[in-house]
């Protein structure tokens, strides 16, 4: 049962092979290495899942990484139910998106590089989820961040792309700073950073406080919130969400894999992984729930009015991630992970479909210039429609089950903010359905609004792209069937499966209430779809009118609540001003340069005198050496 090691190291091998040999030897065949490696990982991951289902659990140290005093970290792997699910999500999405990329990236000049990075990303992500200690988790965490940076800035000759990469990187630093502090706090508190002892001992520290700047802070709350900082950054929650929409500058497979299905969900994974810590702090859970709820509402409202097809999906991702945090925040970690799992499929599918549309539109992203693509690209249309139905929570689709479970647990759970977040969740469900179908209707229905040239160019994507679409579509529909709730006659297998790791909140609602919650969310979904149908297919003039009527609100939403501008005003510009006027103007010019120029000048003057000692005569040097020995011996004698 050691072959689980293949899971992370196959992609690593693929990365090494591609990066070393890709440019000169593999060239157009670079994808084979990566695809085979990742597919191999997938096979092993499935085998591992079977093993986990059989009740095994792996926790093994592989190699001692750092030993410093009592700080000891090794490269080790912990595979339990949560990890197994994440492995399936990561390897499945990764494999399909690798295959999709063959078609999408065809003919690109950095072909081998793209696949190398994708494989490296897969490796890092797998290291992240398979870690058995926080430092290795952090390694994977930063590794995926690095790959994300590489891949957002993949078209590095494009300024907006490289800027977006830097933005993602820098914004993530804010979150990771907190995360790092959190790990340090964990080490200080528990004396170890291995999951098992930490979680086992966490209960013993439930009521401890720590003095911070004169305030007594609840220890577990502090740790949980610091860890949550990392989650906020990585999972693009308020207020660090700004990088994710910009990250859409990367190639679409990257958006699908990294910025929808896997990396951004690492934050949720972290919260779920640390559920024993989070559960000890009501405050932290509340913060998580409210952050998730507000982010999901906030992002959903922005998504209503955007015109960039990928950005809409990006905001949708932020919103859905908010959903997952909402679930975690009310203690329903299983529901959050369940949503993570279903979301990975339909959101990856949405992105890939958007990529397919872009492929057909020759890179055009604006919704207003599309329309009527249905007849040109039926496969893309159908799969995207199914994915949208799933995200809108139409009964029977994957999204329905996970979303319903979240809402029900929020409603019935013990959390003090449960009812409030349930309300927001239901509103978001409505908004989600609305903007998703706005996207569908504007893109695929009606008349084509682009140029004649573009219309001529329209075509269905190649097989390499459509087959992954269809496969993901199966996931988008069926992946939820493992978690059909008892109410609908299912077994809630997913919840049962995850219970040993994540626990399950004690709901206290009746069946009637449960039916009601489900009905409300379904109604919200259907009314969103219906409204979109009415506004964008039946009466296409209404949106314009509304936009004019509420021009202030529309402008606010269209400009994403001016968050970027706010940050620019509050952080970026003061920082630049300080750098320019104080650091460059005073520190650099007046102080550092004076030192830098003064030192060599002084050395010059000094050495002008000193060089006279360099007579070039061997014996003079030897004499001075002998004199030195003499002095040393004399000093040792008569100290």
């Amino acid at each position: 049962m050691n072959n689980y090691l293949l899971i992370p190291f196959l992609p690593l091998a693929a990365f090494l092979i591609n990066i070393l040999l890709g440019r000169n030897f593999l060239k157009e065949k670079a994808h084979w290495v990566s695809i085979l490696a990742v597919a191999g990982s997938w096979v092993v991951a499935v085998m591992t899942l079977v093993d986990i289902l059989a009740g095994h659990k792996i926790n093994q140290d592989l190699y001692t990484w750092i030993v410093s005093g009592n700080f000891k970290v090794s490269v080790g792997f912990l595979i339990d139910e949560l990890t197994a699910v994440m492995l399936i999500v990561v390897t499945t999405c990764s494999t399909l998106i690798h295959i999709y990329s063959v078609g999408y990236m065809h003919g690109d000049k950095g072909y081998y590089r793209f696949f190398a990075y994708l494989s490296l990303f897969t490796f890092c992500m797998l290291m992240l989820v398979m870690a058995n200690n926080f430092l290795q988790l952090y390694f994977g965490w930063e590794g995926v961040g690095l790959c994300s940076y590489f891949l957002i800035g993949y078209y590095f000759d494009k300024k907006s792309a490289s800027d977006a990469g830097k933005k993602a990187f820098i914004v993530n630093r804010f979150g990771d700073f907190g995360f790092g502090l959190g790990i340090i706090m964990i080490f200080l508190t528990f004396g170890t950073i291995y999951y098992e002892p930490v979680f086992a001992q966490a209960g013993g520290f439930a009521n401890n406080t720590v003095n911070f700047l004169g305030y007594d802070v609840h220890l577990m709350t502090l740790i949980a919130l610091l860890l949550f900082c990392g989650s906020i950054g990585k999972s693009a929650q308020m207020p660090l969400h700004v990088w994710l929409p910009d990250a859409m500058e990367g190639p679409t497979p990257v958006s699908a894999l990294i910025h929808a299905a896997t990396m951004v969900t690492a934050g949720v994974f972290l919260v779920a992984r640390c559920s024993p810590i989070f559960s000890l702090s009501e405050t932290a859970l509340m913060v998580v729930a409210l952050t998730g709820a507000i982010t999901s509402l906030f992002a959903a409202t922005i998504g209503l009015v955007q015109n960039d097809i990928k950005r809409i999906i990006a905001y949708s991702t932020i919103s859905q991630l908010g959903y997952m945090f909402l679930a975690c925040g009310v203690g329903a970690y299983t529901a959050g992970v369940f949503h993570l799992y279903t979301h990975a499929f339909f959101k990856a599918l949405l992105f890939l479909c958007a990529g397919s549309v872009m492929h057909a539109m020759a890179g055009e992203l604006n919704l207003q210039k599309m329309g009527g693509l249905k007849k040109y690209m039926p496969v893309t249309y159908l799969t995207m429609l199914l994915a949208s139905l799933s995200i809108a929570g139409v009964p029977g689709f994957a999204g329905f089950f996970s979303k319903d479970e979240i809402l029900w647990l929020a409603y019935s759970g013990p959390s003090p903010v449960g009812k409030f977040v349930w309300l927001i969740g239901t509103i978001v469900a409505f908004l989600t359905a609305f903007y998703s179908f706005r996207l569908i209707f504007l893109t695929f229905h009606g008349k084509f609004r682009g140029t004649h040239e573009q219309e001529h160019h329209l075509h269905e994507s190649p097989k390499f792209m459509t087959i992954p679409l269809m496969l993901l579509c199966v996931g988008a529909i069926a992946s939820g069937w493992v978690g059909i709730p008892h109410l609908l006659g299912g077994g809630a297998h997913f919840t049962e499966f995850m219970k040993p790791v994540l626990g399950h909140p004690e709901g206290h609602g009746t069946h009637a209430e449960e039916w009601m919650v489900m009905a409300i969310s379904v109604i919200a979904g259907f009314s969103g779809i219906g409204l979109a149908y009415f506004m964008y297919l039946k009466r296409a003039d209404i949106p314009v009118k509304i936009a004019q009527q509420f021009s202030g609100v529309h402008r606010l939403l269209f400009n994403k609540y001016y968050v970027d501008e706010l940050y620019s005003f509050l952080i970026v510009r003061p920082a630049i001003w300080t750098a320019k006027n104080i650091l460059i103007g005073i520190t650099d010019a007046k102080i550092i340069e004076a030192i830098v120029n003064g030192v060599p000048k002084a050395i010059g003057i000094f050495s002008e005198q000193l060089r006279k000692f360099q007579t070039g005569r061997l014996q003079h040097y030897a004499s001075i050496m002998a004199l030195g020995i003499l002095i040393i011996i004399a000093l040792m004698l008569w100290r």
Partner: protein
Amino acid sequence: MVPLNWYLMLSAAVFMIGVFGFLTRRNIIIMFMSVELMLNGVNISLISFSHYLQDLRGQILVFFIITVAAAEAAIGLAIIIALFRNKSTAHVDEMNEMKG
């Protein structure tokens, strides 16, 4: 029984003469020979220590010193030959190009 001090004095004297020769002679070969003198001075003290402390490690050290002296002589004399070929002199005070 000769006191160990005497040997050490002798060793120091030979070493000192070597130092003196190295610091004062102009001929580079004599300087080199002075270095050998110094090594021999040290060897004397090591051997006598070895004898008086009844510990063979001193002699091992001498063995290595002789080995290294052989290597050093080979390299050093090769350098001298190369120098002489370029400068046509064996006097160190005439080789002072490396001055500041």
